């Protein structure tokens, strides 16, 4: 399945508390993603919490967008990506 980097902007900042509320939010996202066969791998969040860079596995960019709509999440840009591992290049000398 292709892997995508999904960039999102949250003008008021993203707030996912480490509480039962947070569990509920994240759980809802994961469950909605199932409908689209989309997997949220993990995200990087900017320090001001206004920008996120999320790694997703999914069948198509459209499935990523539909999952975002179902979750009420914004989408700025979707880029298909693959892994570049520096230690793969350095591996012979490690």
């Amino acid at each position: 399945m292709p892997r995508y980097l999904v960039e999102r902007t949250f003008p008021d900042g993203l707030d996912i508390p480490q509480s039962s509320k947070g569990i509920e939010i994240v759980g809802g996202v994961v469950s909605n993603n199932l409908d689209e066969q989309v997997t949220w791998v993990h995200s990087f969040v900017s320090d001001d919490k206004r920008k996120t860079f999320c790694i997703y596995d999914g069948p198509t960019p459209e499935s990523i967008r539909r999952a975002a709509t179902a979750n009420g999440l914004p989408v700025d840009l979707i880029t298909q990506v693959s892994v570049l591992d520096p230690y793969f290049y350095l591996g012979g000398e490690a």
Partner: protein
Amino acid sequence: MDHLLLLERDHLLDRLERLLQAASQGQGSLVLVSGEAGVGKTTMVRAFAGRVGDRAVVLIGACDPLSTPRPLSPLLDIAADPASGIGDLLSSGAANYDVFADLLGRLRTALRPTLLVVEDVHWADEATLDLLRYVGRRVADTHAVVVATYRHDEVTRTHPLFAVIGDLVRIRESVHRMEIPPFTLDAVRRLAADSPVDPEELFELTGGNAFFVTEVLAAGDDLPTSVQDAVLARLARISHDAQQVVEAVSTAPRLLEVRHALALVDAAPNAVDGALAAGVVHRADDALAFRHELARAAVEGAMAPGHRVELHRRMVDILVEERSNDLARLAHHAVRTGDPGLILGYAPTAAAAAVSRGAPHQAVEFYAAALAHASQLDRSAEITLRSEYQRALSGIDDQRGSLDQAEEVLRLAEETGDVEQIGRGLITVARASWTFGDNERSKRTMTAAIELLDPLDDSATLTAALYLDGYLAMLNRRYQAAIASSTRSVEMATRIGSDVDVARATMTLGTAELVMGDVEHGVALVHEAMAMFERLGETTLVTSCYSLLGTGGGEARIYDRAAGWLEEAIQRARHTDSDYPMAYATAWLARIRCEQGRWDEAVALAEAVARVSPEVAKISPVTALGALGRVRVRRGDPGADEVLRRAVDLGRSGSLQHIWAPLCALAEHYWFQGRLDEAVGLLEGPYHTALQTDSPWARGELGFWLWWVGGLAVPPDGAAEPFALHMSGDWEAAALAWRAIGCPYEEALALAGGDDAAMLAALDILDRLQARPAALWVRSRLRHAGVDSIPRGPRQSTRTHPAGLTARQAEVLALMREGLANGDIAQRLFISKKTVEHHVSAVLAKLGVATRAEAITLGRQDGGGVSPT
């Protein structure tokens, strides 16, 4: 030993048991049971049927192991059982789909659950595959478990069943696969417990294949080296008469009536008992059948050829004497006699019957068998037979073969010297070269046909030639030629009194007007043709009219009406499971939604086209991929290039109308990436093709994009108005024209060429569409123009619903309020019924209500506000 044959099958039987229990609660399912030949599929399924007892109605049908099976063979078996209740309808000659619908209705409403078994579907004829697809798609809300067995090693990518399975297994909730593995060494040990045979050697030899193991154990002490040896060793122990009976049974497609067996070999009745004693054949009512197809093939293969031919010949005599109307069975035996007289006597009628039963592959085989002896036919009989063969080949999408046959028909016609015959030959070649993708040759041939026939009086042949000429000209978007030939065809059909030909040519006339001339006049003419088809009972052609109105209306960009016609075409096609027209109308709806900026819908529709079986003609995927690719380009999503290139490759051999949209989308993609030379190179050829047509939209859109990427200085004549206005520099009028038509993206492109205020308006539209690449471009134009207050980014369109519903849940609630049932909502949103149920319960929970009715009224009371934007 029979119970031992169910070794290692317990978990499979338990799964079937659970599915049957679910079915009795109204949750039906289809189970695809696969395994290699002889692994024990039938044994297991029949054992389950036995266990079910009277807890369910058990209906069993099997496909014929014939190169040319009887159409709907399993359904005929099932209909013979009074419990099925479909016998009368089937024998009354009702259309296949009416019979399927009736059967489905019974599965839905029956008080007791039904276990419906269709065995050996790797041999199924097309009509049976249609049945499987029809029932498989709808089984979820029945009280039935439908079991279909097949040999997976025979179902390769090109096998007709492959596509059907691929289609059905996507329905995850109600379609299950079950693979039956060969026995393990452990099971073989238990089976061979009382035999002197060494189990490990036996396992080595048979690979655990249940049939082979059984045959070897039955054959005795010596370990035979093949299945055939094992079967023949068994046979060697019975009387000569009994052997003869077994051989006779092996020539029958599936089973042989006892009386026929005795008549064929002239044996005493006790020979049947001897045959049964060997255990190779068994008795089914008043007929004999092999326990397994592998055994039948072994016996048939071991027979002396002369003897085998003699048995087939005698069987033909017996069937003729009985006045049997089983045409496929007669042809089966006739073909195997190798006797040209018999083959030509029975194969062509069986072929024609197969065509009318919706089994074109079978028809093709019978025609080919008959035409192998064409030298025995007179010329006009050969022309007739080859023409029918050509149509059948085209029907199974063998367009190369179809063109070869068409050429042969023409050559034969030329030998007759009869002008009308030659004219018909030319028409055949023209049609075959068109479907083959040789547009030029098709045009040339039509011109020759009309020149040849024109000096003659009015005739059905010239009427048909003019109709086809007009139709091809319409597809090629040549206005004058389409109108002239279609008008002449209407006039001539009127004079010779052929209503259906009048209607057909009127339909073409209307479509030509719709896409190239007076839109409203065109719409009126197609409606006129539609009314004629209604009166004539030509329901398929009525659907064609809706499809032409919808696709032509889409091209002419009268979107709302076009969408309505397409939805009507989809409904009508769905009713009969006609995948081809359904896919094409759906693909066009995707194209329309894409052009309207309704991109989520466009994507869902394009994905729905991809879900229909892959064998449907190319124009549907070309159109659907074009819409999907254009959405990706305009959203800036990855994968646009790949999808659009595939669309262009698939559509290359067809006419321009299908590929100009994907070509323009690809050029736009290149433009965003700054690859201008490539964009120009891509569009130049198609643009010159467009100039040879009278299509304002082809000239307009290809001309516009070529101009946009810098490959065209002077705009073309005859371009559709909004494109022409934009190219002439009148951005304001162009934007208004696009707004009136309902194309927001094109409207924004026009506004982007205007003053600061217009550019800001363009940006607003593009942000709303989430058209990121074009929005970035307009932002940079605004910066260059020195505009200070450029909005930072798209306003977030996701809005929280008052009750905390997600956008999808709100959408589902809105559809519930329209009164739609879950199944309909699923269809509308292109998601599974189970997912809808999931959403519905979430909606009920969030609204804090217990029932659907409460949710609906509650929604109305608080004034709604639930439409997702």
